[in-house]
């Protein structure tokens, strides 16, 4: 599904060059559930952002669904990204001023989906995550777990081929975290959703099919479970 070849990322501040990622080579096939682990500052989130095309590598080649991402123009890249990738964040990043319903609906607005179809899709999603009763609440009225559920629903509503999650349980208690992980696992197994998550927790990483360990910007190990 995606392939990274010799990907490096560094920041230059004056003469000081800070390397964040160095010579990353990674292939992820469709249907995989990859967990990226590593200590703080090892480059996990940057790697995830590069995979998600939110960030650009300083060097290297990147292919997504056989498209050479490094050669694409901004517009083509965002079209590719928009059509295929869903994002889930540690801090949920729901829009405070919008209700649960509107939050889930937002990506559809940017995919130019008609009103009737939007209603059906959001209703499906609310149903699937059993949050129909909460659709008119605002994020601040929900628990962290519920907010993350909304965040995932929002990510899935455009039916992405790849779901990226940056410490999705980081702000949750363990019970809520387990529920989210169960959900991910179910998505992966039952629907064949490709998932890449960044996590600190061994336990959460174990839900996946492969664990990649990052250290100081390089892949230290990659093992299938």
């Amino acid at each position, binding site marked *: 599904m995606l392939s990274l070849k010799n990907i490096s990322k560094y920041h230059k501040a004056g003469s000081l060059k800070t390397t964040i990622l160095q010579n990353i080579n990674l292939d992820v096939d469709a249907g995989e559930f990859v967990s990226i682990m590593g200590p703080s500052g090892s480059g996990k*989130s940057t790697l995830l*952002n590069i995979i998600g095309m*939110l*960030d650009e590598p300083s060097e290297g080649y990147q292919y997504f669904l056989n498209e050479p991402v490094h050669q694409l123009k901004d517009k083509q890249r*965002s079209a590719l*990204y*928009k059509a295929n990738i869903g*994002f889930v*964040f*540690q*801090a949920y*990043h*729901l*829009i*405070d*001023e919008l209700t649960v319903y509107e939050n889930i609906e*937002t*990506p559809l607005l*940017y*995919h130019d989906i008609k009103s009737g179809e939007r209603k059906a899709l959001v209703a499906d999603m609310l149903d699937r995550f059993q949050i129909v009763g909460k659709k008119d609440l605002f994020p601040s009225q929900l628990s962290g777990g519920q907010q993350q559920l909304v965040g995932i629903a*929002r990510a899935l509503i*455009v039916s992405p081929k790849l779901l990226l999650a940056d410490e999705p349980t980081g702000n949750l208690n363990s019970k809520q975290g387990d529920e989210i992980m169960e959900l991910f696992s179910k998505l992966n197994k039952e629907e064949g959703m490709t998932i890449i998550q960044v996590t600190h927790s061994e336990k959460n990483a174990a839900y996946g099919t492969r664990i990649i360990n990052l250290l100081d910007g390089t892949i230290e190990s990659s093992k299938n479970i």
Partner: protein
Amino acid sequence: MIKNYLKIAWLNLLKNKAYSLLNIVGLSVGMGVALLIGLWVFNEYSYDRFLPDTDQLYQVKVNFTSQHTGKHTQDALALPLAEVLKKEYPEIKYVAQSDWNGTHGLIAGNKKLYMDGSTVGPDFLKMFQFPLIKGNAGTVLKDTYSIVLTQSTAKALFGNTDPIGKVVKIDNQTNMKVTGVLKDLPANSSFSFKYLMPFSFTETQEGWGNTSTNWGNNSFQLFAMLQPEVSYEKLAPKIKWIIRDKGAVMRPSKPEVIMQPMKDWHLYSDYKNGVPVGGFIDYVRMFSIIGILVLLIACINFMNLSTARSEKRAREVGVRKAMGSQRSYLIFQFLTESVLIAFFSFVLAVVLVQLALPYFNLLTGDLITIPYNNPVFWLVMISYILLTGLLAGSRPAFYLSSFNPVKVLKGTAQAGKTATLPRKILVVAQFSCSVALIISTVIVYQQIQHAKDRPAGYDTNRLVMADMSDDLNGNYDALKNELMQTGLIENIARASSPVTDIYSHTSVTNWPQKTAGDESINIATIRISDNYFKTVGMPILQGRDFSSSWANDTSNVLVNEAAVARMGLKNQINQEISWNTAVGKVRIIGVVKNALMASPFTPVEPAIFSHANRGNQALYRLTANANTHTAMQKIGKIFDKYNPAYPFVYRFADDAYNQKFNLEVLVGKLAGIFATLAIFISCLGLFGLAAYVAEQRTKEIGIRKVLGASITQVWALLSTDFILLVLISCLIASPMAYYFLHTWLQKYDYRISIGPGVFILSAIAAVIITLFTVSFQAIRAALANPVKSLKNE
């Protein structure tokens, strides 16, 4: 303590340079506009008040009531009234007659001047105590053949030599001896004479023989000075019916004598139904309101930017409160800051006003300066700074100081967000004012254009007008022949008034269709030579022009369409009418198309044209291909030959015509300038607010971008809110502006009707300006990398 506050305030200014600049520039433009308008208003109110005893000085006026035009007020009075007022009313200290500030030729040695001066009664300078540099106010105008010059006139005629006792020849006829020198009149004086001569001199001139006893010759001005301690209110009922009781000839017009205090001359010159209803004061009020509005807009900017930025200050407030600062200390601290900003803004405002004043004076024709040496001015300015600082700083001060320290320090308080609604209301208030100003400007210009588009009824192109002296009247035929021979002019005629003005009114007392109840008709009267209509391009609709032989047409007249309509004449040609300036009847030989000789904003009044063999205006039209400059030079030489005592002075009719719009054009220009500045200040504020909102919504924008929003969509998201506010402002501003302008337009008989177009266009303009202002920030926010904005947890 205050030192600490000032220091903190200063550091805060430096810390947020862009924001401080935005604040100071906005506030200084606002303060500058208010200061400029304040100076102008003060100048308008200062008119005529520099004279001693202004409170006791009055101009006498009279209200006439007519069936056709209702009650109207005029300054032109008959002389017997002066004697009655002087002799029979002990409440009145002095009375002075005056003619109308007329233009005369002044010759001294080889110096020729042509300038305005008045003849006035002997007590004039005792009433209006314009300072004399030489001579005594009681005696300078005693001798009939004396003249008092202003300093600059004296200098122009005699250079630096002492003018007293020297001779000035008036109109190439009469020698007058200089008896006094007046200081030049200040610019804010309603009088504008350059020299004074005794009224008795006017009485020696031809035609005024029995004026001092004739109640029917309303041709002069009268001024009166009341005794100290006498109030006009008490005197008014006693003088009201003097003319009715003593002047039988005027009785049918129901004359009521009234007086207007000198301090009201300049600002309250419009009379309706016999009472002053306003005048220039309307514009003074209008611009005072505009000045206050612009200042308010600037203060609102300050409030909005300060509260919007409050998140940055919240921590400071929390720390200070935690350290034991009382709320009142904090309020005081923030107010110190705003006063400091107001002070810097004021300094900049003074610089701006100083730079703008020359242009402003050019526009208004005033001589306004900043009175740097006046301690009262500085006192007022200090209050101005304090007041502006407090006004602008009040809301931020109370808002910021209200923060709960625990919440603020924990970071749970959403400082700044709670103030959104009041901030929106303030933005709407700002833009309502700005949009109302835009609408007003457009409508004022539409009204001007509307009147300009009105057909004049004559052709002002290449038409030249010049005053005629006795010499020119005597040499008219020779002048005409010589001018025509040059091939530089198409035609020449003479008349009793320029084509762009009406100098005199008479009455038509009887006409064929007159019914028993009809009163006589007040009619504009122009005495013209033959060739007049051809020269000015006024079409004769029926009948014929005067013939070249004056004697054949002495009892023939032409009238305009309005006169025909007023008299209700059918088959006008050869009808005979009675006219109070002619013995026996006069015969109508032609009807002329209505022409705008008076105000372009009023209906054309009835006019009568009679044949004359002299005139005080020469009117001639240059040929189409003549070079104006060289033509006028050549024509000037011919005029000099036949008119040696006078300098060659002329006016182009199109200039004279355009002068009719001077007041309206001035109002339009000022409204336009202030509207632009108001918009500018509002936009500065909007710019700052947009930056703030973009900053506050950084996270949201990041999320939306991650969810697939394009740059256009983010831009639209950020701009929509502001557009909405501006649209609401347009909805508020439109009826407000409509109301004010509708009232303003009532002044004009000939006016536009306000259509929806101007409101729609103004709204579109406001939206475009807003988009332009907001887009910079919105696009910047939209382009930002979402990874960065979502990173900091």
